[in-house]
């Protein structure tokens, strides 16, 4: 954190990004929540806003603070920018003789800079990279979107009551690769670059050397976000407790809505959907986010392996917190707490795990 960018000079970053050909995406308020969307001006940033999160509870409140990033997170991580909620994979054209011509429909995304990425979401991105890019099969759709991104991380200075990234080891300070990293203080931002693209951008900004006092303040503000109320054990042995009665208790509360899997930044399940055109000859093969809380998820010739909320929840949690260790070498949870806030039944992953082991 060697450089300082004054708050009034932040628009220079937006124009440098635009000049370099990036579309900018950043946090803003929509429908009472923080969302990521196209960002054209710093006036769109949620200045002074802070989130208050509890199980089944998410509210924003305005304060008179000058900060733009003094909130923890919103419902959506940056997952939709790499793993699209709905993506056409290919189309097929049938000619008069019945021959089939397949055509891949790879995305051609515009270069996109995401401003305000959180530590938990960068950790989740690293996991999704591992899943879609670094296994036996490379997903070219994810890859095209992933390669179009420039990531501008912001260290957290406020932890919601639902946050537990300290116990998963993923935050509140950013520990995964980024292009630019910001720490917010009242007067502006401490800035460092983490890639060639980031350094090129930083070179165009009116930066000054960061003073000791500024660095100290940034450290202190980040320290505040380490005070977290929730904790997740490192490797809960859930597969050893498959018959625990608490699964039934959670199952009785769970509405099987799939909100938890939608807001989870690491969930990767998707389904294939075939969409024939009305002409009968063209057909599109699409993928859409799916959820292990949907009855069709485990469908197999005429029956379902899992058909009730207890089984859905047990599948999700055993996979997320135990199966991932074997698949990816670490837990599938990065402590963002979204599944707690956005569960309409207030099911609390950290509290349920405590009951289960």
């Amino acid at each position, binding site marked *: 954190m060697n450089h300082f960018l004054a708050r009034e000079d932040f628009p220079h970053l937006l124009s440098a990004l635009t000049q370099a050909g990036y579309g900018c995406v950043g946090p803003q308020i929509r429908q009472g929540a923080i969302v990521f969307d196209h960002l054209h001006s710093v006036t769109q940033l949620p200045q002074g806003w802070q989130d208050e999160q509890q199980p089944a509870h998410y509210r924003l409140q305005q304060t008179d603070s000058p900060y733009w990033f003094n909130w923890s997170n919103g419902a959506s991580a940056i997952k939709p920018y790499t793993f699209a909620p709905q993506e056409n*994979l*290919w189309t*097929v054209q*049938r000619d008069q003789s*019945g*021959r*089939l*011509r*397949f055509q*891949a429909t*790879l995305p051609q995304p515009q270069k996109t800079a995401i401003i305000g990425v959180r530590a938990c979401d960068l950790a989740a991105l690293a996991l999704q990279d591992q*899943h*879609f890019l670094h*296994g*036996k*099969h*490379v*997903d*070219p*759709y994810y*890859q095209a979107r992933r390669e179009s991104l420039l990531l501008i991380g912001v260290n957290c200075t406020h932890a919601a009551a639902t946050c537990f990234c300290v116990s998963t080891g993923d935050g509140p300070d950013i520990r995964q690769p980024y292009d630019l990293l910001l720490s917010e203080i009242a007067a502006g931002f401490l800035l460092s670059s983490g890639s060639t693209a980031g350094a090129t951008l930083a070179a165009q900004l009116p930066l000054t050397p960061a003073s000791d006092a500024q660095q100290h303040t940034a450290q202190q503000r980040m320290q505040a976000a380490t005070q977290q109320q929730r904790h997740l054990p490192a490797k809960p042995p859930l*597969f050893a407790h*498959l018959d625990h009665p608490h699964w039934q208790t959670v199952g009785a509360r769970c509405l099987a809505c799939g909100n938890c899997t939608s807001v989870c930044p690491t969930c*990767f*399940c*998707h*389904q*294939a959907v*075939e969409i*024939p055109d009305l002409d*009968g000859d063209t*057909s599109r*093969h699409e*993928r859409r986010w*799916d959820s*292990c809380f949907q009855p069709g*998820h*485990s*469908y*197999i*010739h*005429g029956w379902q*392996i*899992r058909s009730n909320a*207890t*089984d859905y929840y*047990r*599948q999700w949690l*055993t*996979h997320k917190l*135990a*199966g*991932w*260790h*074997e*698949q990816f070498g670490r837990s599938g949870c990065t402590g963002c707490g979204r599944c707690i806030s956005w569960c309409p039944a207030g099911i609390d992953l950290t509290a349920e795990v405590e009951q289960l082991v």
Partner: protein
Amino acid sequence: MKPNDYLPHEVQIVARVQEAPDIFTLRLRFTDLAHHARYHFDAGQFNMLYLHGVGEVAISIASDPKDTHLIDHTVRVVGRVTKALAQLQTGDYLGLRGPFGRGWPMAAAQGRDVLLITGGLGCAPVVSVVHYVLRRRAHYARLVIMQGVKHTHDLIWRRQYDTWAAAPNTQVLLTADQTGQGWPFNTGLVTQLIGQAQFDPANAVAMLCGPEGMMRATAQALQERGLPDHDIWLSMERNMHCAVGHCGHCQFGSSFICKDGPVYPLPEISHLLGVKGF
């Protein structure tokens, strides 16, 4: 051009064989002959077959890996896509991507007794192994083929069983849960046949395919005969959409059946085998 494992290639149905009222075999060839020449698979692997406007379905490959002429898929009508596939005729076109997954341990089984134990209908993945072993008879010791079906009319390739029984060093044991007149074989579950199987538990590999309850009971009977767990292999089945370990539907504990399976040695899956909900 980067590889795209999601994109099917066009194949043509060169022949269609009706095996039983609801079981048929499609013999396929890529229309791109260069692609056909590049295509290789292992016994026990599967392909995703795509029917225009309907969707994809995972079907195991029934032909011999060394048969470079055609790729066979034996299909039972069970769902939406297989029902539609059944309507196809010779000359029709499909999409195919594959092969996917881990096949049977044919190399590890060389020089050893091979037990092929199936339950339920057809079980094409194991029939392909029968052919595989018979064509390379000298590479394997005893061959024991055990099949249990529900009804006697479920037994397809009945004539082939006679041929196999006449092959050297080969034992065929057939049974049906419900038998009628003219059924010359056993009555009861396939697990009850294990006692009659002639093999050396210290030097044998068992390959199982069928309903999980049947495979669990069979594995237990084999353990009782002294066959070590790591020599018992099972072919698993779950919902599959992507076949490349990305979509998550086929997860079985920490494993993706499409990518890490569908064939597993028992120790890799025994902790969840038979657990309801997985």
